[in-house]
């Protein structure tokens, strides 16, 4: 039986269908999770997809963190459940304090939608082990509030502990401190990423297929664990 990877749909989620498709292409079974769910339906990992959960009211991800399904995910993530938060999912992980720092309005004030070059900095997470350290990839980036901010001390810690998963290459598209595009928690099971690997899994619809390793990485670690 293939690994079961949950994809949470909040009111206002946009990229849940693409995340499920990426999971399927990688060879796992996507499992739809609803924001009001009181159980995780035996999933082995969870993807929090992009979009505008609860209309981005209050702050991006601020209301989603109190969703019933999120209280279960927060609890399980603290004891090892693999979680990948993409874009709005990254914002939710920061609001939930599973990841440090926060995401704020792009420094140039405009919504951006581009094919973005990234450098994979850490392959020591459950979601990036199929990459090579230093590998450069191109995947879509689309956000209005994607500027990663954290204190200098937190940034120093993230870099020294190899918890910066990816950085922007060539240009800094949203004012993120030190070009940070994605980070992980200390254990490496929780990863937040502002760009969208789930939109780069098929030649027909994506600029590349560079997003696939995020999903095959987790599949391998789950298969290896069982």
């Amino acid at each position, binding site marked *: 039986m293939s690994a079961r990877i949950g994809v949470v749909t909040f009111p206002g989620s946009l990229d849940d269908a693409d995340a499920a498709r990426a999971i399927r292409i990688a060879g796992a079974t996507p499992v739809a999770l609803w924001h009001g769910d009181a159980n995780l339906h035996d999933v082995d990992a969870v993807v929090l997809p992009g979009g505008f959960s609860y209309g981005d009211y*209050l*702050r991006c991800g*601020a209301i989603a963190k*109190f969703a019933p399904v999120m209280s279960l995910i927060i609890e399980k993530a603290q004891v090892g459940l693999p979680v990948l938060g993409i874009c709005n999912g990254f914002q939710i992980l*920061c*609001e939930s304090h599973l990841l*440090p*720092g*926060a995401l*704020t*309005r*792009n*420094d*140039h*004030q405009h919504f951006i939608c581009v094919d973005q070059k990234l450098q994979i900095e850490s392959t020591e997470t459950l979601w990036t082990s199929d990459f090579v350290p230093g590998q450069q990839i191109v995947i879509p980036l689309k956000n209005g509030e994607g*500027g990663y*901010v*954290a*204190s200098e001390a937190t940034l120093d810690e993230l870099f020294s502990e190899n918890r910066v998963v990816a950085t922007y290459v060539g240009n800094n598209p949203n*004012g993120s401190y030190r070009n940070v595009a994605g980070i992980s928690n200390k254990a490496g099971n929780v990863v937040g990423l502002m760009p969208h690997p789930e939109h780069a899994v098929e030649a027909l619809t994506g600029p590349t297929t560079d997003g696939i390793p995020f999903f095959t990485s987790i599949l391998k670690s789950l298969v290896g664990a069982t």
Partner: protein
Amino acid sequence: MARVVVNVALKPEILDPQGRAVQGALGRLGLTGVSDVRQGKQFIIDLEGELEGDRAELMEKLAGELLSNPVIEDFALTVEN
């Protein structure tokens, strides 16, 4: 009846692109000498009865956990009972 007013602002060290855009607009509209603009949020919460005891504690806690994000924002809470 109690009215709680919570003002939320980005911490001084966090870049405020909206405030900066407003600063530019003020200058373009002829207001001279604008050295800084920070944009925040205000919540006006009307409550039945007086705000005291456990309810006051919960209000303060939620101002820090829901209404603001302590990583990037500060809040100031005032109560008019």
